[in-house]
């Protein structure tokens, strides 16, 4: 992040990701240790009442984290949280964004609270989150 203090309302995080594929979900299943079959096994997903497999929420949050640490060094992140607002379907092309919501100070450390979103190609919010970063 630049030395200049960001201003409230400024968008400092923006990154787009390639469409979610079955292959990506299979790789993430192995790479993350989350072996819940609902994300990779179509038979299991259908039996659980879903039309198809769908993305791990944490894969989408990992993308949001990647967008965040492209803009902010990881050592400056104090907290990172999100609500999983909607299921991310196969083919979703995700855009992650973050804007400065508030400037604050904690025990003498200057910080900013960022509002974060992940949307798909139709603009539907998948993740609504925030991060607190040290400036």
């Amino acid at each position, binding site marked *: 992040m630049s030395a200049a203090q960001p201003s409230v309302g400024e968008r400092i995080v923006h990154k787009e990701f390639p469409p979610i594929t079955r292959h990506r979900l299979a790789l993430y299943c*192995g790479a993350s240790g989350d072996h819940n079959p609902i994300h990779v096994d179509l038979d299991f997903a259908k*039996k659980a009442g879903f039309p198809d497999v769908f993305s791990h929420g944490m894969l989408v949050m990992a993308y949001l984290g990647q967008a965040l640490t*492209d803009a902010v060094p990881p050592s400056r992140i104090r907290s990172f949280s999100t609500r999983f607002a909607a299921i991310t379907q196969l083919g979703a092309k995700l855009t992650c964004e973050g804007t400065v919501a508030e400037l604050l100070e904690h025990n003498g450390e200057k910080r900013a609270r960022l509002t974060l979103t992940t949307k798909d190609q139709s603009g539907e919010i998948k993740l609504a989150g925030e991060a607190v970063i040290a400036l």
Partner: protein
Amino acid sequence: MVDQSAVGREFTPVTARVEPGRLRFFLDTLGEDNPVYRDENTARAAGYRATPVPPTYLFCLEMMDATVPFEFLTALDIDLARVLHGEQRFDYFAPVVVGDTLTFRPRVTSVTEKKGGAMTLIVVETGVTNQDGVHVADISRTVVVRNPRPS
């Protein structure tokens, strides 16, 4: 159905080592090419002892090295097929880098019924310490259980 009696339940602590090969697989899967995660010199120049982990990787380490997969679900008699991830939070207190050995201690901190019992929200909070006993992070996970309709 999970009720208030679950609050305070603790589960088997998980010990996980941050291994470079497994971390590289994660980075490759996400197309993560930020040099701070991949190049030791870049990481050291940024003040780390070794390459750090990305912000959500703590969640993965706990799952990868759990001796009982999905223990809190089985312990609370929850069907994996009925679970969705509702919310996730990380609070970071100290860096986590390749070579660290972490201990995760999960416990249930709240159980809330929603929509007249159609859903139950369960919060599991996990403190994370490293090999030196440093409290490096807290993780909070909210799972949504889609309860079966009463027959």
